[in-house]
């Protein structure tokens, strides 16, 4: 039994690694995706283009503008002095935000009143608009407090003291990169396994395999091992790059991380083999893998929080192994979680893996023509 499985796993690995194209698929795209996600996919707003429409000549207005100019979130790309210039700037996306300071702004606040500042936002991408607005708010709040302190006035009645835990600078990369570990291991494992039976079906070798004394369960295990191994290697590589390349802290136990990874890979292999035993051609296998992958990523909390989804959709996420693994990843990386704390994430992945592998094994025998 063990000998059979070993022979099969060795054959699978050889078949995979001797082929130049599949070697490339295992290495090229994951690295490219890691770079794209790690560097380009960020929720932070930096150097957002803004325009300033200053109708005031006073010192207070200049000070406020200086704060915007000094912020790394914004870059002042234009200064305008007529109302009708605003529309053109926003329409052509030259400015995300236009800050308009009224003619009596300095005068009003020097008198102790409050001066109106208008913000015009490009709301077409609501997410970015909200971010820009938040940055604007905090700059204006800082300005207010500094102004009040200098003039010996009491500050705002309630003052916000912000202390973000786990990610002190609220860097979105710390949130995104651990997620990529899950995303990329899913992609690679799914592709390796989803194509494995289909490739053999296309080449006619699957029949040859089925007429040997190998039992379906041996074939199943033999075909799972390469997926697990490659997934583990790939996962470790990405974890290493995340820690050493992107400087993400790995605060929890490595054991907890690998237990999670192993269980996650088990479920990914199960799903991959299930797709594989349904697919007749490699094309169908690939299509099936993507059909699973896209919703799995969207419904995982990788980018958008599961809590924001409608109740019915939230229920679907419970059968998504990536959902659990992302919690494990972020837990171990940022929170320093231990195995015990992550038990609730481990057992659903193990269950999904078990069920999908059993289903895949059943489909092997019953979907053969």
């Amino acid at each position, binding site marked *: 039994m063990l*000998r*059979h499985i*070993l*022979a*099969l796993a*060795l*054959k699978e690995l*050889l*078949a995979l690694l*001797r*082929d130049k194209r599949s070697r490339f698929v295992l290495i090229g795209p994951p690295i490219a995706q890691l770079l794209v996600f790690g560097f380009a996919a960020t929720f932070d707003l930096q150097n957002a283009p803004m325009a300033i429409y200053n109708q005031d000549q006073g010192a207070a207005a200049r000070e406020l503008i200086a704060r915007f100019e000094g912020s790394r979130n914004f870059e002042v790309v234009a200064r305008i002095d007529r109302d009708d210039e605003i529309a053109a700037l926003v329409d052509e996306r030259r400015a995300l935000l236009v800050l308009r300071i009224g003619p009596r702004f300095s005068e009003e606040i020097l008198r102790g009143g409050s001066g109106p500042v208008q913000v015009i936002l490009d709301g077409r991408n609501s997410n970015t608009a909200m971010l820009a607005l938040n940055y604007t708010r905090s700059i204006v709040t800082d300005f207010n407090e500094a102004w009040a302190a200098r003039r010996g006035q009491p500050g705002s009645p309630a003052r916000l003291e912000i202390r973000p835990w786990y990610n002190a600078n609220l860097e979105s990369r710390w949130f995104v990169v651990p997620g990529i570990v899950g995303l990329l291991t899913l992609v690679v494992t799914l592709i390796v396994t989803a194509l494995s039976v289909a490739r053999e079906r296309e*080449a*006619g*070798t699957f*029949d*040859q*395999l*089925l*007429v*040997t*004394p*190998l*039992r379906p369960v041996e074939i199943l295990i033999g075909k799972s091992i390469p997926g697990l191994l490659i997934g583990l290697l790939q996962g470790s590589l990405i974890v290493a790059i995340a820690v050493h390349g992107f400087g993400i802290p790995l605060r929890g136990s490595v054991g907890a991380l690998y237990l999670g990874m192993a269980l996650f890979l088990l479920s990914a292999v199960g799903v991959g083999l299930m797709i594989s035993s349904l697919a007749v051609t490699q094309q169908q296998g690939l299509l099936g893998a993507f059909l699973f992958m896209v919703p799995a990523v969207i419904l995982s909390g990788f980018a958008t929080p599961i809590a924001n989804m409608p109740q019915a959709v939230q229920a679907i996420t419970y059968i998504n192994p990536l959902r659990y693994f992302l919690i494990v990843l972020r837990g171990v990386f940022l929170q320093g979680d231990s195995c015990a704390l992550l038990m609730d994430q481990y057992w659903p992945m193990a269950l999904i893996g078990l069920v999908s592998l059993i289903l895949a094994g059943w489909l092997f025998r019953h979907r*053969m*023509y």
Partner: protein
Amino acid sequence: MVTAAALACRRLCKAFTSGNRVTQALDDIDLTVAPGRIAGLIGPDGAGKTTLMRLAAGLLRADAGELRVLDLDVSREPLAVQSAIGYMPQRFGLYEDLSVQENLDLYADLQGVPVAERGERYAELMRLVGLARFAARLAGRLSGGMKQKLGLACTLVRPPRLLLLDEPTVGVDPVSRRELWAIVQRLVREQGVSVLLSTAYLDEAERCDEVILLHQGRLLGQGTPASFSEPLAGRCHLANAPAIPKRRLQMRLAALPAVADAIIQGERVRVVTHAAGPPDLSELDAGPAGVEIRPVAPNFEDAFITRLQAERAEATPNPPLPGAHAMAGPGGAAVIRVDRLERRFGAFYAVRDVSFEVRRGEIFGLLGANGAGKSTTFRMLCGLLPASGGRLEVAGHDLRRAAAQARGRIGYMAQRFSLYANLTVAQNLRFFASAYGLVQRRRQERIRWALDGFDLERYADMASGDLPLGYKQRLAMAAALMHEPDILFLDEPTSGVDPLARREFWHRINRLAEQGVTVLVTTHFMDEANYCDRLVIMADGEVLAQGTPAETKARFRDAERPDPTMEDAFIALIEQRAQAAGEPP
């Protein structure tokens, strides 16, 4: 004035590169095809037939050399060439969801045939191919032979001056094959079309006016079929020894040094000697009755084989097959039992009411055209496909439900090469040895046996997908025999391999059968049926006849055909069946 040649090429070369392997598909070909005749492009798979066709049709560009079709330079004026020729590729692009008439209309549109001319042309084509009654039928529901005829009609929808037919008869049943040939001959006779037709069936060479013999990209010869076989006059004989079975006689004759080739033909053995005159049979132990031998006229296959043998002077002698299961000869016990086997796909019966038994040590044949249900039956026997009805037993088990060990008693060789193409020969052998549960010494021994016995040693580290076709087949067979199975399943083992490899293959099968291995083989080559001890002939999923080859043929012996071939018997069976069903074939 001399009429321009239908096709002429000088120093034509074409190579294909896949990975780091370069295949010289055509190597320095010089030839001229005269117009108004049927020229046959003959050669085994990989000879370069399709490449030459595609070059002539302007679908590929030659690496070097000149190619003129109907006096037009193909590389300069591919469109002019394409509008003057008709090209029917191996798999003609019929639209299966369109009716016969709609397919014709579509090709008429594509070829720009004026609507006014269509009525007359259609009528003529339908008369030619005999599909008028089926005009409304969907192309997907035609038989294999009818599809080929429709493909031919679509190719002819705008009358071409040169017709290129790429293996039009492959996998088609013998009746349709005869009809296709009749159509092509009539086209040449009545309309003066020039035809270049490729085929892997050597018996079709004799129907051509001229034969172009290709092998591994090189031109071995060109001339009338007779010009090929004439040099062999006096070297061909038919031998018969009443006391010993024909397969044993064939093996003994083949071993004689004077014999170039010995194959089973009908109930006799056809012998080709190296020199004129019958072979010296004094050393042949053929029992008290001796060997009857009589001269026969040489045919094209004899000529082809002797030429190929000359090409491959270093060809390996038939290697011994040590260590296969040494059991008693054919025993009485049935090893494979099939009883009213049935397989439905929806409302369609791929196999219906099939019953037969195979005894131990027998070579048992499943004969029929493509789509006759042979492969479906075969897959059910191997446990790869569940039966919809009936019972089947292989070595006492239904392999679909039996324990894994039961599968260890069978060997399986699929129709197309189905080992791991990107693994090396040695890696493939090691994997299958382990898969069959061989360990340690035994495993080493069997791998050594395979490398030596099949002459694979020198290819041991080559990716098996890059092997020459004949060696792929050897490797597949070595893998199937690794564990010394009692029963060997072979699905169309000889389709596409060259005649020399076919001979070697049957030689090995004969040896295995002598050692008591039961062999079940499917084939669409009617002449190979004579190697079988017993056979069933299938058509449309049903058994038409079963028995020994001699019995099967004897049923159709009459004054007109005193010595019918298996093909004659097959055609007669199909005709009988069609008459019983009340429609002309």
